[in-house]
């Protein structure tokens, strides 16, 4: 018996492909912008 199992498979994912892809793209964009903002703040340093 395998130690872990996938809850979903590709055919399941296909049913919700658009909302899934959009939400993951949304997450990716926000994380990239956040990294940019954090770098900017770190460069500025303390007040």
């Amino acid at each position: 018996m395998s130690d872990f199992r996938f809850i979903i498979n590709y055919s399941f994912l296909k049913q919700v492909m658009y909302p899934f892809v959009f939400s993951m793209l949304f997450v990716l964009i926000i994380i990239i912008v956040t990294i940019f903002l954090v770098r900017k703040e770190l460069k500025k340093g303390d007040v």
Partner: protein
Amino acid sequence: MFRLKELLFKNNIGASYLYFYVHFILEVVCYFVLYSLIGNSFLLWIIPLIYDAVAFVPQSIIGYINDKCPKFNMGMVGITLLMIGVLLFFTNFNIYLSIVILCLGNACLHISGAEITLKSSNGKLTHSAIFVAGGSFGIVTGRLLAQINLPWWTMIILVLTMIPFILLAEYYKKDDKTCLNFSYNSTSISKGIILISAIIAVIIRGYMGYGIPTSWNQTLLQTFFLYIFMGVGKILGGILADLFGVKKIAIISTLIGLPFILFGDNYMIISLIGVAIFSMTMPITLGVIVSILKNTPGLAFGLTTIGLFLGTLPTFFFEFTTVKSNNILIIVFTVLCLFIFSLILREDKKNE
């Protein structure tokens, strides 16, 4: 005892109690909506994923906007969005749109609470711990209310009750201080490494929140206790870290919590103690991230919620089927957390 009294009743703590209620009601409303969801298995899988993505992840950017425009009342924006989201959801408007609006309202209210409690805390962790703990109690209450088929319009009334609390909490915002008193980070390590390490600790905590073996948890009442202990652990973490020092509490709670989590699979009380001890590190990781980003506490809070999202993301895709493999992962993660805490936290001061 005197210091405990001072922590719980002085130092602008009022904002935390006000936002404890706001956070509680916020999660009641959101989880009432989530648990009222009916539909096929695809919908029941994707909606919680969208909820986590849109409620957790944009808090960094919303927080940054609030950091730069501190006069802006993000709490009232959150209330408005939340109300629109609830109305659209229960009038069977587009389900995705209603969830997204609801989540954005959730994110705005989180940021509003985080900004006020962090800025008014004078560098203490109890304040934000009390605010954050309200959510744990709200999640389970929302689930309970959804299962007893409470009419949906009661949620609108609950949302409206938040308004006076948010307006009262604004009183604590007037000083508009930054978080310069937060200094929980080790000064010998670069700030970038501390940030990344703290976020990894949050990701681990986010994953373990779902990965803790709880075979005992079969009834709604048991789930209720699970979330109550989670909330109590968060508050205790903040109070004990303020009283005895962040490093001591972070390392001791991570170490002591492990056996309770591992051996509590079939024993509710043991497991609940483990969950409470395990939750104690929550305010500490937030405190260390704020220590690095003192001028942008909203952005700092948003980083912890991104970490939580990344930690819960794998649980949507796979699960461990054997207790042994799950326990091995928990031990590895605990050791990693211990290493991170000993690396990034400053030594406790003598008077703590």
